[in-house]
């Protein structure tokens, strides 16, 4: 092939001309070049006056709770109308894919919901705006919010020193267990500092077989990045990616967390360095999972099996499984009573550190109503709004003051305090979610399923994973 000439075109031009069948002309480089970024304007918008009307396009489902929130918000801000765009997705990966497709189609909303998985991806691609100036301006108003929210959740929403979201809900990985199966196997509630060996003993004792078939499994999990076999990596002292902290962020910590010991040493957000997938500690963690499968203590995990796992747990076929606060609402909806399941910290191996994911609202850079969008973000993170939105325990509120016995009385679990206290476990931090999260998630699925299916050993699978992650990492820093 001859030498490639490179030239840039605006998206509008490419679509327009290609749509007219001028692809060949485009390839010949006859279209006018433009360096304007894809309809993504970085220009600020003057603050709304009370007389100016703005319509905010917000990603969300207009359910009963959202209707209440909308009425509250529009009462407080009569100059702003909320227009909800329902984006259905089974998981965060799919949601990001759909949001990016909306961006590609020029239909980007003003406010989007983004979890840890996408914070760096959206921020690095300059799709969203940092909230620093807004937060500094409204610091008096926001002091109450930050005082109520664990600093590690806030740090997870930072990228290169800037804050991109006010976190409103999170899910830390904990161990859900079935107290009845525990009791039948002769075990009570494990201690807060139970170990991997304790876990193994209990899981083995719970496992029941009928001939060659296992009818009750001690432990089950699904293949994905959050709460999969990955907590075992962390308690074994490993990581999939080299962890560090970006510089900066003191503007936030010094303003809102000056006297909080948990905020000490935090920086400008999590920095994910080169991959370390095939560390011996990671191989050991995956091998532990494969041993459980081979011994029939754990079923062979599958991708996209979250719903099935919840069904198996609810039907008392699983003794233990990794899950977060969101399972409380899910199991309650599946018919389990508050005393039929409980939760405990992850078992200790070399550490007792696990990970979490957190979510909030981001303002799109393309929004023409950024000030109105900020008002909405602030409102959404207020306690009255969060109380309505997070009703039913489908997730965990980021506000410590909302974690109450009354909140968990209808759904359980009995030891709901574990959810928030997990954040205090030394080293617990956000799941690894670099700018190439989607591709990384696919690579993890690929090699985990290879190992679990018996096609590769733990070492071979993680060597393969390492190789692919290295190539993704190199592409990401180019």
């Amino acid at each position, binding site marked *: 092939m001859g030498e490639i000439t490179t030239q*840039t075109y605006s998206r509008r031009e490419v679509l327009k001309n290609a749509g007219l069948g001028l692809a060949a002309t485009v390839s010949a480089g006859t279209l006018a070049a433009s360096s304007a970024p894809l309809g993504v304007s970085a220009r600020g918008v003057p603050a709304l006056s009370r007389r100016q009307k703005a319509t905010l396009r917000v990603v969300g489902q207009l359910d009963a709770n959202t209707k209440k929130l909308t009425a509250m918000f529009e009462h407080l801000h009569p100059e702003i109308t909320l227009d909800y765009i329902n984006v259905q997705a089974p998981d965060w990966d799919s949601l990001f894919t759909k949001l990016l497709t909306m961006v590609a189609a020029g239909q980007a909303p003003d406010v989007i919901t983004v979890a840890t998985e996408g914070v760096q991806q959206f921020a690095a691609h300059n799709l969203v705006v940092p909230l620093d100036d807004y937060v500094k301006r409204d610091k008096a108003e926001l002091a109450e919010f930050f005082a109520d929210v664990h600093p590690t959740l806030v740090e997870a929403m930072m990228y290169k020193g800037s804050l991109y979201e006010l976190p409103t809900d999170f899910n830390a990985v904990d161990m859900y267990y079935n107290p009845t199966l525990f009791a039948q196997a002769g075990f009570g509630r494990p201690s807060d500092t139970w170990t991997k060996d304790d876990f193994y003993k209990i899981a083995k004792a719970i496992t029941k077989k009928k001939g060659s078939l296992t009818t009750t499994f001690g432990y089950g999990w699904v293949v994905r990045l959050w709460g999969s076999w990955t907590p075992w990596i962390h308690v074994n002292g490993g990581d999939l990616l080299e962890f560090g902290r970006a510089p900066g962020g003191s503007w936030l910590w010094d303003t809102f967390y000056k006297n909080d010991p948990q905020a000490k040493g935090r920086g400008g957000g999590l920095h994910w360095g080169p991959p370390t997938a095939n560390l011996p500690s990671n191989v050991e963690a995956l091998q532990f999972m494969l041993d459980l499968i081979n011994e029939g203590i754990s*079923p062979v995990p599958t991708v996209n099996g979250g719903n099935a796992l919840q069904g198996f747990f609810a039907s008392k076929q699983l003794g233990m499984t990794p899950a977060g606060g969101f399972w409380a609402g899910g199991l309650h909806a599946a018919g389990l009573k508050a005393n039929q399941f409980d939760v405990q910290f992850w078992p200790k191996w070399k550490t007792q550190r696990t990970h979490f994911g957190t979510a909030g609202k981001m303002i799109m850079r393309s929004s023409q109503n950024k000030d109105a969008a900020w008002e909405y973000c602030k409102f959404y993170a207020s306690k009255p709004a969060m109380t309505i939105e997070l009703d039913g325990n489908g997730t965990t509120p980021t506000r410590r003051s909302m974690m109450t016995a009354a909140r968990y009385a209808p759904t359980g679990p009995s030891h709901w305090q574990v959810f928030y206290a997990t954040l205090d476990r030394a080293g617990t931090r956000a799941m690894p979610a670099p700018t190439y999260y989607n591709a990384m998630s696919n690579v993890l699925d690929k090699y985990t399923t290879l190992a679990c299916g018996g096609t590769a050993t733990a070492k071979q699978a993680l060597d393969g994973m390492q190789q692919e992650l290295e190539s993704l990492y190199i592409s990401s820093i180019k």
Partner: protein
Amino acid sequence: MNQQHALPARRPTRGGALAWLTEETTAGMARRKTLLAYLFLLPTVLGILVFTAGPVLVSLGLSLFSWDVISPPTFIGLNNYQQFLSDPEGLKSFVNTFIYVALDVALQIAVGLSLALAMQQKMPRWLRYAFRSAFFLPLVTSGAAVSIVMSFLFNKDLGAINYYLGLLHIPPVPWLSSASWAMVTVVLTSVWQQMGFTFLVFTGGLGTISPEVLDAADVDGARGWRRLWYVTVPMLSPTILFVAVTGVIGALQVFTEPYVLTNGGPGDATHTVVMTIYQAAFQNLQIGYGSAVAALLFAVIMAVTAVQFGLSKTWVFYQ
């Protein structure tokens, strides 16, 4: 277009185009009929241009660019195609897709034809309707929903299928977790869902076979398998060609079943071409690369279809 509908040559008239069209002559009537035909065709042609040809051209154009949706596109010529040729995963996805196509289309034809033949037997009308509804129902069910339910059923350790196999003393089959079984599971799921369509087409095809031909075969002593093989199948060959061509085109674009059931795994055992396109374009934001793979898939579909039609001359029998 045949001669009858050809637009007659325009002749200069004093009343202009309207008079030329409304002329009360045989030629004028022919012109009006022709114009009407074009008007009826117009919505379809516009639809194809806007929703099929347009996106195809856009995609072809984009395949020459590097574009991540967010930054301006950069023209890179054929680099995306070169990247594909050096991408073992991309090539593997084509191999996987071909395996899927071969298994899926062969089974669709076998199962659809068997069911259609079974429905030719004498049975009460209500039973026939019940069977037909049962065969057709999966086709009108969402592919994603079917795949989710199937993932429960095919679970190696907790699924219903292995439970019943266990009652027959058959050890658990790793339907979704083994690299060699996963493709079989994807095919079975797809065949179960799609068989209603092939059943329907074969039922129609069997209805077109002249009873005289079958009676003559009977008189000549061709019964059972002999009659099926030497009479029914040749008479059904145009229908088989139709099912094979549409089946191959559809199967080459398989996405939902492997995406929901296995996400392309274990490893990349069920990773198909359209999954490569989806992941490249919408997950990894490599719109140009995804478009290049889409263009290659388009070329493959065209080539395979051309070969099918070419070979059909040797085995398809038109009554």
